[in-house]
């Protein structure tokens, strides 16, 4: 069950044993560098670097990663195309020949930059999502003083996503057994029934969970054990490596800042 999910990869990958704070800091700082870059060069390098980390070092199945990557990639590509055509003024570099549409150098550069930043930012997040289990992220979130109520809701959501995923898969199978998805029209109907049924289930499960929690002296707030551990557990070596890496990237941003294809 759940073998090909993000969560499973987050729990079982080669970078699992690495310090959580290091991974979070690395992911976020690199993402920020990708965002402040004024040329597409550094973000694209970051995207490539992160992808290599995910597939070859963390050993996440490349098929899964490719599928995961495809959605933001296609979204980014569409953004790129639209920006290239509709944004910017000045000399045309390519006439489309219909409706007087044309690609301008300005628009092209802007589109490419946005696309590159998106890919850079996404791969950093993907690195975090694929190598760090949610359960460990919660302790980082607690450390940076995210409000307790937000954390509680996030924790409950995380747990119940899988409970309901399980139920939804079971329901889907029982519907499929009775040919609920044999035509498009039937599929829509079955899917609707599944959705509404699941909604009612969440209601009932919520009630059950509340009774079970009340039986264990629940008083309205979920208390959690403080995990010892702070940013310091990261180690000097990791910190130095991180700083060096980010400095190199920022220098890259500085030197390629005025780079334009057109």
């Amino acid at each position, binding site marked *: 069950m759940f073998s090909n999910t993000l969560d499973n990869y987050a729990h079982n990958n080669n970078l699992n044993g690495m310090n959580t704070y290091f991974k979070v800091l690395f992911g976020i700082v690199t993402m920020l560098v990708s965002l402040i870059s004024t040329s597409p060069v550094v973000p694209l390098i970051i995207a490539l670097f992160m992808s290599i980390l995910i597939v070859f070092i963390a050993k996440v199945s490349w098929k899964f990663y490719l599928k995961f990557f495809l959605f933001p990639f296609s979204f980014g590509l569409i953004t790129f195309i639209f920006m290239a055509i509709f944004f910017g003024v000045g000399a045309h570099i390519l006439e489309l020949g219909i409706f007087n549409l044309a690609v301008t150098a300005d628009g092209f550069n802007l589109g490419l930059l946005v696309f590159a930043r998106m890919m850079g930012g996404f791969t950093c997040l993907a690195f975090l999502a694929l190598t760090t289990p949610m*359960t460990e992220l919660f302790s980082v979130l607690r450390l940076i003083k995210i409000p307790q109520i937000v954390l509680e809701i996030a*924790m409950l959501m995380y747990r119940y996503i899988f*409970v309901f995923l399980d139920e939804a898969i079971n329901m889907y199978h029982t519907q499929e057994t009775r040919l609920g998805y044999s035509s498009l029209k039937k599929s829509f109907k079955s899917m609707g029934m599944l959705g509404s049924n699941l909604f009612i289930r969440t209601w009932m*499960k919520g009630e*059950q969970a509340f009774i*079970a929690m009340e*039986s264990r002296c629940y008083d309205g707030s979920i208390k959690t054990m403080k995990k010892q551990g702070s940013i310091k557990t990261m180690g000097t070596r990791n910190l130095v490596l991180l700083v060096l890496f980010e400095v190199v990237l920022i220098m890259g941003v500085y030197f390629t800042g005025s780079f334009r294809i057109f």
Partner: protein
Amino acid sequence: MNIIETKNIIYQYPDGTEALKNVNFSATKGKIVMLMGPNGAGKSTLFLHFNGILRPTSGSLKIDGAPVSYQRQDLMKLRQKVGIVFQNPDDQLFAPTVAEDVAFGPLNIDLPEEEVKSRVKEALKRVDMEGFEERPPHYLSGGQKKRVAIAGILAMRPEIMVLDEPTSGLDPKGAFQIMRLLCKLNREGITIIIATHDVDIVPIYAHEVYVISEGEILKKGTPQEVFEDKELIRKANLRLPHITHEEDQISFGKSYPLTVSEAKKRIVEMTRDYKKFN
């Protein structure tokens, strides 16, 4: 001494239907008590009275000789004393990791951090689930989830443990492990109350048995006494243990055996007697 005692408990749903009708239930301290009944007989409803989640419409409930008080502070103490393990462990396990879930109860009764940690460790050790601390519950098997749910209750150090269908949905090995664990806990001094409709496990583990059907207690006694009344068992939509059905073919004399080991013993005895006479 009766650690739980209910007197003429009636429970009505808001729509007026009676879920429990004049229930007189008592559990002797340090025993395994089984409540046997078909689906919808009111077993779970009765259990929710034991820790004050539901309040009887009429009748009284005594825990450890004292009537239950529904003051907030007293309820907290009661829930610590009486732990309920629910039928579906997915309803009970809500935290992202096993350790956090087991720690939930002890943290709610405001124990110091160190104490909570040692209790979590101890509880997981008692149910044989060490090494699973940081796992999310959805990667555990049914039996493992059940054991974690039991650990979550154990960590509160209850005197009474109430379990709703502890073996349902488990494979034979998982079910056996749970029952063995419950016997161990019982030997360590916890009174155990189990609702079940698995009649084959009843004579093996129970000291006292209740038969409940449609919100009414039909009979109380030792397994031998309860299963003697075949008519009643059938009326309650239950059946006799498998080995007892053999009685139709082999005559064991006056009372019939309820467990395989007992039947074996009796057969050996009978053949020995037979040889003696010839």
